[in-house]
């Protein structure tokens, strides 16, 4: 389903996108040590789309490539292979198109690093307006910043302050106000609450959901926290070592996770209800994306792995409403 009822293309379409990084040592050292080039496959062939007004979340552990996808989605990285389509237009060809860029904004993880400490909040929030030449009149700009600050739960007077005068949660509100100031339709949020305390996290998640309802925003949400993801998502993609292993509607994923990795991730979350359920931790660690295992990347840690899994890389296959890349699920071995 790549088009909605009105015949509009999805807000974002990611088609078989890969992004490799050259992590070789310098040429001379490489020659002396007689070694070849080394390539890190941060994202290795993933496809999904984000329909308008919905939230797609990507979850996975560090190094799985989810933040690289976030950067690819706003055109901060070019693709090694495949295409990213924003509102039907290829991002790589539209890189210089300011009108296109105005419609997408990003919210970063660390509100201490993503706000310039020497700028007043007013200037921080107004920067996208200036950059895109949206509001030229200074007074009108200040009025608009005041509105934006009110919208995210701060006061217009806060515009005169500097970032250090705010707590982490308030800074993340400033980041959101800045992102909204160019009237975007699409927001990429890379771990927007993981630097925040849990009570403040709830404030920010509520704010984001509220803004989405009011303004019809589309979100690509990146997180490692499954509980957070469940609260905000319409659909969820689980990534492992640069690939999607499962993509499903949010409720389906939580009610019936299919991929052994998804199940292991859910199993690993500490149990707040203290049912005394004995957790079975996933053994092993995430392998290096420089030399991923052959076949299915999860096979060294997977309880269901067999010869085929070690040999042949599974492709995303529909199972009900879920897309899952697992030989065991395809063969029904997971139900034994």
């Amino acid at each position, binding site marked *: 389903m790549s088009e909605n009822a009105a015949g509009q293309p999805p807000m974002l379409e990611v088609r078989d996108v890969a992004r490799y990084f050259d992590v070789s040592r310098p040429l001379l050292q490489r020659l002396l040590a007689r070694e070849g080039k080394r390539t890190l496959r941060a994202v290795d062939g993933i496809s999904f789309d984000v329909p308008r007004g919905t939230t797609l979340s990507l979850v996975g*552990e*560090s190094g799985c490539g989810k933040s690289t996808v976030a950067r690819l989605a706003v055109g901060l990285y070019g693709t090694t292979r495949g295409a990213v389509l924003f509102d039907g237009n290829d991002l790589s060809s539209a890189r210089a198109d300011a009108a296109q860029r105005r419609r997408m904004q990003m919210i970063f993880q660390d509100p201490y690093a993503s706000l310039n400490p020497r700028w007043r909040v007013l200037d921080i929030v107004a920067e996208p307006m200036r950059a895109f030449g949206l509001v030229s009149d200074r007074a009108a700009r200040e009025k608009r910043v005041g509105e934006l600050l009110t919208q995210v739960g701060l006061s217009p007077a806060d515009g005169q302050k500097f970032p250090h005068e705010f*707590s*982490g*949660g*308030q800074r993340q509100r400033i980041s959101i106000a800045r992102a909204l100031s160019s009237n975007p339709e699409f927001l990429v949020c890379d771990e927007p609450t993981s630097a925040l*305390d*849990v*009570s*403040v*996290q*709830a*404030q920010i*998640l*509520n704010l984001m*959901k509220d803004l989405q309802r009011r303004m019809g925003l589309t979100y690509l949400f990146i997180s*490692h*926290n*499954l*509980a*957070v993801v*469940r*609260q905000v998502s319409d659909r969820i993609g689980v990534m492992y070592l640069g690939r999607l292993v499962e993509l499903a509607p*949010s*409720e389906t994923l*939580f009610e019936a996770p299919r991929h052994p990795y998804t199940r*292991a*991730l*859910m*199993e*690993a*979350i*500490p*149990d*707040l*209800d*203290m049912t005394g359920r004995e*957790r079975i*931790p*996933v*053994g092993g*660690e*995430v392998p290096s994306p420089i030399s991923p295992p052959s076949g299915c990347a999860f096979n060294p840690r997977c309880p269901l792995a067999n010869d085929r899994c070690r040999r042949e890389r599974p492709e995303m296959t529909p199972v009900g409403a879920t897309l899952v890349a697992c030989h065991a699920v395809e063969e029904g071995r997971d139900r034994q």
Partner: protein
Amino acid sequence: MNPVPAAAAAPLLEVRNLRVEFPTRRGTLTALDDVSFSIRAGEVLGVVGESGAGKSMTGAAIIGLLEPPGRIARGEILLDGQRIDNLPREKMRRIRGKQIGAIFQDPLTTLNPLYTVGRQLQETILTHLPMTPAQARARAIHWLEEVGIPGAAQRIDSYPHEFSGGMRQRVVIALALCAEPRLVVADEPTTALDVSIQAQIIALLKRLTRDHGTAVMLVTHDMGVIAETADRVAVMYAGRVAEIGPVREVVKAPNHPYSAGLMASIPPLDRKVEHLAQIDGAMPRLTAIPRGCAYNPRCPHVFDRCRVERPDLLDAGTTRAACWLHDPASEKRAAHV
């Protein structure tokens, strides 16, 4: 099943009315104010709260590593009945490692990148235990095996950067436990790790401390980790203990409005809610702690007394909570607010 031996009924660690101050140009800041709690041998005390609440500072005060100019202004810390808060630096250094082990959040900064992990383990063992270098090496290998590092005998001569994050944190745990301390202060030991690794580390920490009867002070902001690991929990807010009690009661039926707000704001994993419970506002800065109860500007149950008088820990039935709602004398006032 109670793993606590009968002889250990007296607390191993006792913190009494601890007050930590930071003198600054603009006056003295009180970072910790009247903090009291105790931990028995074999017991895990979880310490939770938002950043800046004083959790890590309490840990630092116990292991004698307060960042200057921070200093203990009042109160005492007793290990096994002996005061350790006023010891000379060299004496405290001997206690650290031998009696108290420390595990910090970031395994990369805890380990010295220039020495092999084996050398760091041996050094710790030799400093605190009467052993020959060969015995110390054997013991170091034993501890690496104990924390689940595969091929310990080979990996012992590797440098920290040759280990992954999860493996490094295992080395840090081995380092904290190798001199068999009686108390371990673990400050966010799993925060830097991925969930799947986190579960492994928690299981490991639980098993080792149970096997060795070690008391643990576990500082974390992750309530899930606390629920799984701790026997009792202290909730801190603005440099004070807001509530302390058995883990089940504090997590499931908290008596302090702040603990209740904190627990309610954790996003549930088992269902989607339209609107998450949130605590409005932010924790006050040390420079502007409100009069009366520090939580009163954010508290949904606030009444007159909270704005003037500061509550101490009061008996709240299942737990102890620093809240006037639990003072029989203020019940009438609370009712008509």
